[in-house]
């Protein structure tokens, strides 16, 4: 059975590229090295929700049609529109995104990617403050302190810790895996001992879990090597393996960040608790931050989408910038979709702006709050929409989604997702990274090629190809109109 090696996994922003796939009769039958999400995608991508024929809405229902007809209809919708929106892009290849931008420019629309509902605030903050960052290998080799803030890599980026941070083996820093195992053993031992003592000497009713306000730090057992700090509103799986867990009260991240900024400047905090955490504990954690040789802070949507939004990120970036006065420290957003970073990157090199780009005046304009797709939809200004590799109807604010589905809607997606069900034109596409090749960017801006492992079902084309056809058709229609 042929085994394809060094396949890049098209699921999350970690973009692990060491996946080995066994292919049998044009089907993937075995996945090696991948996490659960990776396996699920490679083994289950061709499931019952796959769309295999282009469809057009007629008399209220979707009916099958030819690709040519679907492309023609899609081009008509776009060519007729005054202010179309083009949205999605984070789960497709850079090559397809590139064509998408050309299409947006041609039709004078607003093009936007999923950053608008995830790390958009991070980008706005980077534009305010800058960002000291690095590639993930640098962290693997050098970081002796890892901080995850408002993100849960154990569940959302399952191999992040193992490949790039605490459990990875680097040149200057060893993997903390072994000492973590020892720590767990010690913890289990201690628990056993305590319960034995309780059973023998103390007879009390089972303790009720303390409310958040009576916060107690996580039992801390010193271990060798890299340290891991997790800061989150709840004790996640990632928190379980951390050396320090700071349980911040929901929506109090900003306070906590500013408190850390004060502490690392050796300023006194004249309160007992910040964001529900005792100041003594914060002082201890701040001390760990200052005294490391190389620290890395990863932040997720817990920080970008909780109260404060870009102000939180401003504070986080400033904290890390300040820490660079004392030691080496870097910060990185935990990007979700496998190529959302690539979408930002391609947008930026072609238009100067990472998302929310408006071409209605013939040149790129950028003003999130005015030119993002959500803003345009909430103002009910768009009169057509094309959605590529995304499902905004299930993730946008309800009012925005309501207007979106009122527009003539073109969807290019392999799946019958919620948005696809509302489509007027639905063109199924091949899975990039499984049935089509391309390029994607990892969360640290490293470009990694995506492989074509198996052939797509008959008649199914990659996003890039479909978009090219639509663009060609739009140009043909416009030329005809001009001539007339």
């Amino acid at each position, binding site marked *: 059975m042929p085994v394809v*090696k060094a396949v890049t996994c098209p699921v999350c922003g970690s973009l692990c*590229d060491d996946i080995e796939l066994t292919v049998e009769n044009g089907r993937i039958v075995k996945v090696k090295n991948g996490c659960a999400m990776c396996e699920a995608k490679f083994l289950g991508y061709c499931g019952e929700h796959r769309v295999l024929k282009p469809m057009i809405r007629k008399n209220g229902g979707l009916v099958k049609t030819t690709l040519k007809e679907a492309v023609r209809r899609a081009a008509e919708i776009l060519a007729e529109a005054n202010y179309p929106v083009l949205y999605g892009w984070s789960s497709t290849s850079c090559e397809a995104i590139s064509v998408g931008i050309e299409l947006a420019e041609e039709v004078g629309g607003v093009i936007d990617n999923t950053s608008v509902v995830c790390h958009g605030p991070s980008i706005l903050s980077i534009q305010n403050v*800058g960002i000291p960052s690095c590639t993930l290998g640098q962290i693997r080799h050098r970081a002796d302190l890892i901080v995850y803030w408002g993100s849960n890599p154990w569940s959302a980026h399952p191999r992040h810790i193992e490949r790039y941070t605490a459990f990875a083996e680097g040149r200057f820093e060893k993997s903390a895996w072994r000492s973590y195992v020892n720590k767990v053993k010690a913890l289990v031992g201690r628990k056993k001992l305590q319960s034995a003592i309780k059973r023998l000497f103390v007879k009390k009713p089972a303790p009720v879990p303390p409310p958040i306000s009576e916060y107690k730090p996580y039992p801390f057992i010193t271990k060798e090597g890299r340290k891991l700090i997790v800061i989150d509103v709840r004790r996640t799986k990632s928190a379980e393996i951390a050396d320090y867990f700071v349980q911040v009260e929901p929506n109090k991240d900003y306070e906590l960040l500013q408190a850390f900024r004060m502490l690392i400047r050796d300023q006194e905090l004249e309160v007992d608790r910040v964001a529900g955490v005792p100041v003594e504990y914060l002082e201890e954690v701040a001390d760990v931050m200052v005294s490391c040789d190389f620290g890395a802070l990863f932040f997720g949507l817990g920080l970008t989408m909780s109260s404060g939004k870009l102000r939180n990120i401003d504070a986080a970036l400033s904290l890390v910038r300040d820490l660079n006065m004392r030691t080496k420290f870097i910060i990185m957003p935990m990007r979700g979709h496998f190529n959302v970073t690539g979408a930002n990157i391609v947008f930026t090199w072609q238009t*100067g702006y990472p998302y929310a780009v408006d071409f209605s*005046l013939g040149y790129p304009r950028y003003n999130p709050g005015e030119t993002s797709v959500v803003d345009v939809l909430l103002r009910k200004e768009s009169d057509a929409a094309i959605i590529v590799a995304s499902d905004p109807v299930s993730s946008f604010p309800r009012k925005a989604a309501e207007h979106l589905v009122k527009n003539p809607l073109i969807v290019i997606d392999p799946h019958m997702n919620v948005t696809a069900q509302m489509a007027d034109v639905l063109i199924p596409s091949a899975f990039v990274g499984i049935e089509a090749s391309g390029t994607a960017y990892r969360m640290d801006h*490293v470009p990694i*090629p995506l492989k074509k492992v198996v052939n797509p079902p008959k008649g199914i084309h990659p996003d890039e190809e479909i978009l090219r056809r639509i663009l060609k058709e739009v140009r043909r229609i416009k030329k005809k109109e001009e001539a007339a």
Partner: protein
Amino acid sequence: MELLIKNGLVYDPINGVNEEKMDIAVKDGKIVEKVNERRAKKIDASGMIVMPGGIDIHSHIAGGKVNSGRLLRPEDHFKDFERKTAVTRSGVGYSIPSTFTTGYRYARMGWTTVMDPAMPPLEAKHTHEELSDTPIIDKASYPLLGDWWFVLEYLRDGKIEECARHVAWMIKATKGYAIKLVNPGGLEAWGFGRNVKNIDDPVPYFGITPREIIRGLCRVNKLLNLPHTIHVHTNNLGKPGNYVTALETMKCVEDLAEDGKPVIHITHCQFSAFKGDDWRTFESGAEEIANYVNAHSHVTMDMGQVIFTDTTTMTADGPFQYILYTLSGNKWVNHDVETETSAGIVPFHYRRRSYVHATQWSIGLELALLIKDPWKILMTTDHPNGGPFIAYPRIVAWLMSRKAREATLKKINSKARSRSLLPTIDRELSFYEIAIVTRAGQAKALGLKNKGHLGIGADADIAIYKFNSETMDPSKKYKAVRRAFKRAAYTIKSGQVVVKDGEVLKHVDGATMWLDVKTSEEAKITEEMKRRFKDYWTVEFENYPVSEDYLAISQPTTVKADV
């Protein structure tokens, strides 16, 4: 397609042509002896200057760092944008233009070849994707190799040939053109937030000094017979007193030179020609550098001229950018790349009234005017570090006209003016010399055989400027020079007229040049090497190299190495 450029005043220094009225014939993208006069498209260039297309040896136009700069600075784009036209794509400027705009703007000035000087090997695909999206101009990129762990380890162990084979592999894998060193050793130290102090300060944990890295890679460069020399951004860049480091860097490879051929290129030398102990006692070290360069033949350099404007500084020199951030308080981006290099970005405004900035402006011009041989000092702004490349017409005017220099001198900081050497320099460059510093010299330094001249067989990359050098004196009419260079009358790329009167007529792809270095024995891709690869990087070995698919037009040059 055939093309005949008639009656132009031709400047072609490589072929010794100095202001000769002659016709240039073009066929199939090359310059030929003659074409069928009736069939060929004719361009009347009478009363105009004809030069080879401009070449830029050092301009950050593509790649991760440039793009992070674009993302960082929406305010840079708001004030400067270009609409979509029937032939061109839309885009934005100013100091970090989007890719399409970059290509158009170079072409409008008559430039046709641009080298992107800093490509982190791990992110080479990104650089090439952007280069492929940069229309009209031909381009190439230099991989950053001065802090690559393989290089540091092989040179430490004295395995020069092994090092050369791996460098050859890397140049091929990244589709690169030359060996770039940035603050050698300092970037590795920056991995833990440190730096090296001088060229003999050992690199932490690697037991090697910058001097050994520079000498080692210089020897590697010779072993591989690469067309360009090593391209060096010196240690201590941007620090007062660093002219000593620049001199030491040039001296340390003096003995490696043979037959008076250059072995080292010191890039954006202005930033490495600072005298003084701190910013208060800061002054120009241009004279010392110029004296050395005038007495030696193994060095070429480029200016890195400062322009008084708001720009974005970006180099692979992480520690320098951090210092610039602490000095300016502006927003700061840092991006270290595992096992290879680092990068930093800080927006910066050069002000006439600032003593330091005005002195920097003066240093660049002093270097260009005090170094007697124009083949040794080439014109750049280190775009966008000294200022955006669209300022080239102004630099040309400053170099050609004492009057133009005086007009600017009047407006700068008075202390800087009184200390500047410029009032004592009478030299004014001729168009022939301008053709050297902007084209011929650049092509020669880069080893580009088919570019930078108008001889038979050369690439038909031609710039025509509306300035009659027979009747007009550029020294007095410097504003007319500026206008002429700002909007070329014609730019011809590979035999096609792409620009007329400063307007882009055609969106064509430019080629990406790279070196296919043939070593007698390939770097052994053994299991051992693959294991080391896995240890050093976080991507798989087979996903690392850049395939030719990433290049819009791939133009390899085969180089036969001595190892």
